[in-house]
């Protein structure tokens, strides 16, 4: 009963932290579109938070550059458990158009564990919301 309440509250109140790990900025604009009145994810209780200490889901856009790797790992470690990672865009999934560049890791999962990938270059806001729903479904199914 108590655990059910906690699970319910986690599903109903996913707060996100937006992290740009070297995106071309198109993905970031789509992530911001998710928060604006047209898509308004506050309907589902999602809020954009400035501090990793307050967040539940880290939304990462862009392939991880060598320069930002350490910062990304530190932000990940600063986020309290339970935490989830949503990789938005082809870059975050595989390196995308930056694949085989000398200065990037090919995907966020080379650095930190990822829960859900949202493909697209850039993915539409609906796709990003769909990704979050998938993440919450995983949460719901986990015992």
């Amino acid at each position, binding site marked *: 009963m108590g655990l059910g309440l906690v699970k319910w509250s986690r599903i109903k109140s996913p707060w996100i932290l937006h992290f740009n790990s070297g995106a071309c900025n198109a993905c970031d604009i789509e992530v911001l579109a998710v928060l604006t009145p047209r898509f308004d994810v506050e309907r589902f209780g999602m809020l954009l938070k400035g501090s990793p200490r*307050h967040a539940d889901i880290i939304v990462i856009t862009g392939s991880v550059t060598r320069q930002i790797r350490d910062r990304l790992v530190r932000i990940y470690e600063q986020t309290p458990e339970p935490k989830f990672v949503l990789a938005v865009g082809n870059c975050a999934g595989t390196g995308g158009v930056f694949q085989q560049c000398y200065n990037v890791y090919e995907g966020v999962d080379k650095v930190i564990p990822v829960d859900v990938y949202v493909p697209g270059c850039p993915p539409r806001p609906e796709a990003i919301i769909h990704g979050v729903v998938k993440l919450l479904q995983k949460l719901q199914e986990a015992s």
Partner: protein
Amino acid sequence: MMREALGVVELLVFPGFLFLSWLALYFEWVDRKFYAKLQYRYGPLYTGPKGFLQPFADFVKLLAKEDIVPAAVDRFLFTLTPILMLALAFYALFYVPIVPMVRNVAFGAFEGDLILVIFVLTMVGFLKFLAGWGSTNRFSAVGAVRTAFQLLGYEIPLAVVLLTAGMGAGTLNISLIAQKVASNGILASALLPALAISIVCFQAELERIPFDIPEAEQEIVAGWLTEFSGRRLALFRFATDLELTLAAALTAALFLGGPYGPAIPLIPVQVSYFLWFMFKTTVIVMVLANIRALFARLRIDQMVHFSWRHLLIAAVAEAIFIQVLLAAGVIA
């Protein structure tokens, strides 16, 4: 015996801890929902009917999250400040008339409780400073210093207008002021400018747009709150909601008569208290949300400048105005 039992119920259930907690979450919901409506959004929608349970879900989730204590923080302040802030906000609410049950006044009412509540309001602002300072994070420190600066700005005008209501009513007991304002139309209309000033000051006290300078997330992450996570953050958020409740209830009591108002026929007087109180405070919270939607953030120097140049002068002018009316015998 019966009376004492009722007193215990009043302390714990209605309008005590349980009701106050519900009220705090209700006001956060009103605030977020109305703010969203003003921006052509829906706001929380699927958590309970019309998103009503959203603040509760946030609270439970934060309680169940990992509670990180960074190695560099001052452990004592880091633990003490959230608890103390919550306790102080609850404490002050027992002196403000909400729905008087046993006696016809607030639970803890005594002559001079207005001074006590003003003191608690200052203490809450000061605790925010200590919380940020104890985090020893550069963003928290900047936020903390800004909080203290802002306190210098709104503190004095707020105290002046709150005491002006006391001056007009000739007492420093919040419940008696509320009764007097509710029954004296001239006093209530003379206090309208004070109502406007106090709403602006409370907006600054609560660190909401345009006075969210200490939490400016585009500049300093989350200000003095940056390092807090899990349980501590939940307590801080809850304390902020209670502070919003306190602001709304206090403004309603001092300038609009709080729960007292024209009797509504056919229902017991307590129910009419409840209806009047909910009506007045909800309107005040909506006004606060409206200000939030209307403005952009000020700079810290603009804020202090504005408070000392305009707000303080307006507050003192209002106090003099009430004094003149009292001397001329207009307010009986």
